[in-house]
């Protein structure tokens, strides 16, 4: 089920449908032999962050399922930590190192050491360097480059906002430039809104990781909401921010009902925020664990000398009425995809 970048929908209702359908894929179908008894070293970008921890957990599970000896190293949300973890993996004589959510540029030194040590390195959810240092980098979805994939996130956010506002979205834009993909989401979002004549961007506020570190994040956001009283739409790049105070900031503004708020990633705790109308109304969800499984699959193919195949990890918008998983459950697409079973089917040992 390969789908190309979404066509702008005709009207509001179809916009919503486009958002809910999203873009979906499926794990590859061609088999790959399992190289047995390897040690896998999984470098999480930071166990304190769901978006890092969940894929890492997936990778750990996947590696375990094929009898690999795998362990997770906590990169502690800072690139020096990532580098240290990779090197620790080299010292542990790992055969495979899977990095979750780390751009090559931030760890190039360590990656080169891994390369020299002849270790298979797999890049999940990150960007490789111009002259690639990874043995393999996951492509999320067939037909989508790194840029296109993240822009698609923005596009889907836009579709949902347009649908919810009947084509009259007045967006308070959030600039998040601390990652490669932040600006890409923004691009997808603004490009799509540009095609919607009733829509406009009424203001913007820049939020950064340092704001999270200094605790200024909620205040800045509240202030921006205050300043742009006419905004009726907000798109947030990271679901985690809602529980760092954004959700309550929206409640405190007293405009939770007129504001249409959509996030990104679909982290498990956010289901309840959405269900309880706690400030966040929707999110662009994807299966986090899938990233981990895809990482292991990629590793197997590299070891078997095969070409990598797209992981097929799709994106769908979740809100209180549609696609919302049960409390505490990871996101499964509609129609549901049992990627774990699919992978185990094609991993032959």
């Amino acid at each position, binding site marked *: 089920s390969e789908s190309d970048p979404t066509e702008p929908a005709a009207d509001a209702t179809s916009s919503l449908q486009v958002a809910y359908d999203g873009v979906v894929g499926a794990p590859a179908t061609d088999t790959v032999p399992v190289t047995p008894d390897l040690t896998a070293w999984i470098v999480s970008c930071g166990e304190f962050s769901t978006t890092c921890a969940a894929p890492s957990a997936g990778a750990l599970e996947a590696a375990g399922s094929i009898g690999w000896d795998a362990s997770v190293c906590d990169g502690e949300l800072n690139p020096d930590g990532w580098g240290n973890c990779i090197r620790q993996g080299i010292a542990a004589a790992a055969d495979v190192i899977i990095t979750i959510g780390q751009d090559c540029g931030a760890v190039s030194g360590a990656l080169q050491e891994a390369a020299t040590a002849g270790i298979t390195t797999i890049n999940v959810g990150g960007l490789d360097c111009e002259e690639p240092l990874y043995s393999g980098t996951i492509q999320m979805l067939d037909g989508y480059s790194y840029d296109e994939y993240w822009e698609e996130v923005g596009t889907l956010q836009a579709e949902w906002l347009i649908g919810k506002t009947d084509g009259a979205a007045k967006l308070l834009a959030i600039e998040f430039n601390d990652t490669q993909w932040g600006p890409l989401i923004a691009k997808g979002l603004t490009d799509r809104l540009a095609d919607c004549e009733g829509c406009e961007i009424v203001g913007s506020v*820049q939020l950064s990781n340092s704001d*999270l570190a200094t*605790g200024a994040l909620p*205040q800045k956001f509240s*202030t921006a909401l*205050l300043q742009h009283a006419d905004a009726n739409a907000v798109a947030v790049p990271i679901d985690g921010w809602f529980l760092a105070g954004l959700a309550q900031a929206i409640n405190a503004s007293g405009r939770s009902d007129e504001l249409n708020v959509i996030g990104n990633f679909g982290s498990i705790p956010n289901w309840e925020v959405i269900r309880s109308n706690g400030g966040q109304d929707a999110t662009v969800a994807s299966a986090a664990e899938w990233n981990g499984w895809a990482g292991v699959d990629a590793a197997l193919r590299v070891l078997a000398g095969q070409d990598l195949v797209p992981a097929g990890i799709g994106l769908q918008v979740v809100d209180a009425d549609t696609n919302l998983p049960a409390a505490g459950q990871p996101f499964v697409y509609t129609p549901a995809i049992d990627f774990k079973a699919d992978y185990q089917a094609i991993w032959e040992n």
Partner: protein
Amino acid sequence: MTTTTTTRTTTATRTIPVQRKSMTVVGERYGLLILLLAMIAFFSILPASSGAFFTTANLSVVLANQSVVLVCAIAVMLPLITGNFDFSVGASAVASAMVCAAAQAHAGLPVIVAIVLAIVTGGAIGLLNGWLVARLHLDAFITTLGVATAIAGLVQWYSGGLPIYGIDASMISFGSGTFLGLPMVVYVVVAVALAAWYLLSWTPFGRRMYALGSNRRAADLVGIDSTRLTFLGFVLAGSLAGVAGILLSARTGGANPGAGTELLFPALAAVFLGATAIRPGRFNVPGTVLGVLFVAVSVSGLTLAGAQSWVDSVFNGVALVLAVFVSTHLRRRREGRGR
């Protein structure tokens, strides 16, 4: 005899600090306040921000968002007054928030119980610190750093890195609601600040804490029970961290795992900044409040002015140094620069 008395009077004039209520003294004490007002004036005039800045709505935003930091600042101040760092305040606040949220979301306990548990958690951490530092005489800096690290670990263990959501609706609305036009949390903070201010400035207990901090040797010699005061300092700090945790959980509608540095640093900055104002040279509550507001107002103003996020780091940094410079310089002007 007469001569001695005359010499004495001459010395007396020497020993009485010169013209105490002079402009410089005012400047020295209220320099930070003046800077704050100047900044408020600036942002109220600046076209980019003037619209929304000087409104009660914005005031509420500023106050409400600083509530947690302010309570943490007061918490961290108490051990500092007795001469001990407490690096665990941030972590304790996060841990308490976790307990508070988990008690409701996971254990389904009533709000009041959750609140009590949160304060107990903070208090217990305070007891631990106090025991290690006051009774076992371990170095406060490294000890509390160790405790903070351990707590962060436990938080991560319990939460598995996942935020907790789903606390009682009443608490959520308390965190986001207003009363008489001001956010409800602000009333809690004001109460805490007033209590701390009274305790420190008006009771013998507070005076003894300052004395202990200013000279431990002398404190021992005049029979001040320094062990007890140090211990209490930490316990109070822990309990206040618990209160901060409750506010935090109410403000976030749950609890977010983390090491709490995002609370500790602003708090420390505010406390030290505050020590340059009102009662220059000693940690004091009004100064700390000013310190917190000083940073908060600049963030608010700059955001309204649409400044990039790096700007307020630079702005804050420079402002900190400037504030210290003003009060220090004025104090030296008054005392006369003796070597």
